[in-house]
């Protein structure tokens, strides 16, 4: 029995450019240069990743005695292999298989009269008093965590990542952007370029944007756990 691997639906930058130009009715590049189309495709892929949260990565951050806030974005940037940082979705403690820190806010801590004084281990985190990219752990650790890459006494931040840029024509969208959704990226790319035009361009841009969003929501739907037919079975 033959089967068609999804890889065959994978589109590299060259294929994405061809489709974008078709949608733009600009096959020979009279109106938009390759540079601008490439940039629009990359921004469309970025938008797809933001909306669908399809890229996830994890960074290990060493906790330090008496230090409560940690710059997760900087920790990601210091690594050469991780996807660019988006926002946190889970903060594990003492390794992946151990428990997670629970989200809280400094208002909850203040109003409950709880203390953030240094203690043996942290069990909560907050982001509400910190800038983008930082998290604060509560209680404040009283000792340093194990030196990296060890995970004892450290936090493991799972975050929504952003895609890498496609620069060469043979580059593909990030692996975590599933092949079945590659077809929607050119719609957003074309929409981004057409919104620079006149009224008629704007109408087409809105139409393409709707196509793209529909693909994004389809991808979000498919990400739900238990996505087999059985997941929909309910007692009558």
């Amino acid at each position, binding site marked *: 029995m033959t089967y068609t691997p999804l890889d065959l639906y994978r589109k590299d930058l060259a294929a994405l450019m061809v489709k974008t130009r078709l949608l733009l009715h600009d096959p020979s590049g009279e109106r938009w240069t390759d540079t601008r189309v490439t940039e629009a495709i990359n921004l469309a892929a970025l938008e797809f990743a933001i909306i669908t949260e399809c890229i996830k990565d994890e960074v290990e951050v060493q906790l330090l005695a008496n*230090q409560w806030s940690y710059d997760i974005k900087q920790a990601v940037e210091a690594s050469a292999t991780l996807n*660019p940082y988006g926002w*946190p979705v889970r903060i594990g403690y003492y390794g992946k298989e151990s428990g*997670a820190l629970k989200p809280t806010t*400094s208002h909850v801590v203040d109003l409950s009269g709880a203390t953030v004084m240094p203690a043996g281990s942290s069990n909560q985190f907050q982001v509400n008093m910190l800038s983008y990219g930082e998290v604060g752990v509560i209680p404040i650790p009283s000792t340093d965590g194990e030196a990296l890459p060890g995970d004892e006494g450290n936090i493991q931040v799972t975050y929504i990542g952003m895609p890498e840029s496609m620069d060469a024509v043979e580059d593909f969208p990030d692996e975590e952007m599933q092949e079945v959704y590659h077809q929607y990226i050119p719609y957003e790319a074309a929409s981004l370029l057409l919104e620079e035009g006149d009224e008629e361009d704007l109408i087409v841009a809105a139409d393409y944007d709707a196509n793209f969003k529909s693909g994004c929501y389809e991808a979000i739907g498919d990400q739900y756990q238990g996505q087999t037919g059985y997941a929909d079975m309910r007692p009558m």
Partner: protein
Amino acid sequence: MPEWFARQFYQIVDDTFRLCGDFRGAQINGRTWTRSEVRSIANEKMLELIKLSGALKTVRSIPLLEGVNVYDLPPDCIMPLRFGMHGVDGYVLTHKSITDLDLVGCSRTTEGDPTTFYREFLAPNQVGVMPIPSRDGSTFLRSSDYGLLRQISDADGSIPFDANRPLRQIRGVPFVRTGDGQIIREVISPFGNLQVHYIRAPKIIGTDEFQYPDEAIPELVHKDIKYGVAFELLKGSKKKVHRLKQQVFGMKWAGTIRRLQRIVEHAGPMNDVRPL
């Protein structure tokens, strides 16, 4: 090193010219608008983005003085979020209304360590504390959140601390050592002083358009700043296409602010907030 999707200011300005149909070439003025006009609007829109999303937050210590109960907030403070005493492991100051105290005939002459704050009847950039501080705040370095310690050399030649270490990492270490050390930057201990967490203003971009927006503005929204700027520039235009664009870009800009707000507050599925 900024991510690939970070936009330098000249790119944001060029992107805006393109959206408004006034692009005549990279890094040159449009026919209708100059780069300086677009830069000025872009700075305003970034301020709006931060004010409404609360993306840039910071904390500073305000040194308290004996007998002084009203203090200026930091000059870059857009909105205070929390007032506390004695640093991150100290206590929070709760809000009091002067009018409520007046109604019940309370005086405000008590002295001691502040436990409450008020902003009523003060200038927008001021905060008052109650009770009135009975002592100056500490400048003792024991538990400072700020400052950078370059190096400490003990008398026996050993170096317990080396290189640039933020003081907050060595809180609790008694400074009874002798030897040479150098503290760089002004250091104010949180102990006995007021700490304010607040939303701060983003940096302003001037004529150097090769700069990036404030480093704490997530790069993933740089691409959308152009919508806010174009929305503003196209206001009042009588051209049909401009009016149409203004509607579209206005909606996109509102979406950008909402998205950034959700991203900065996002704490994972346990917090049940999903950025879109």
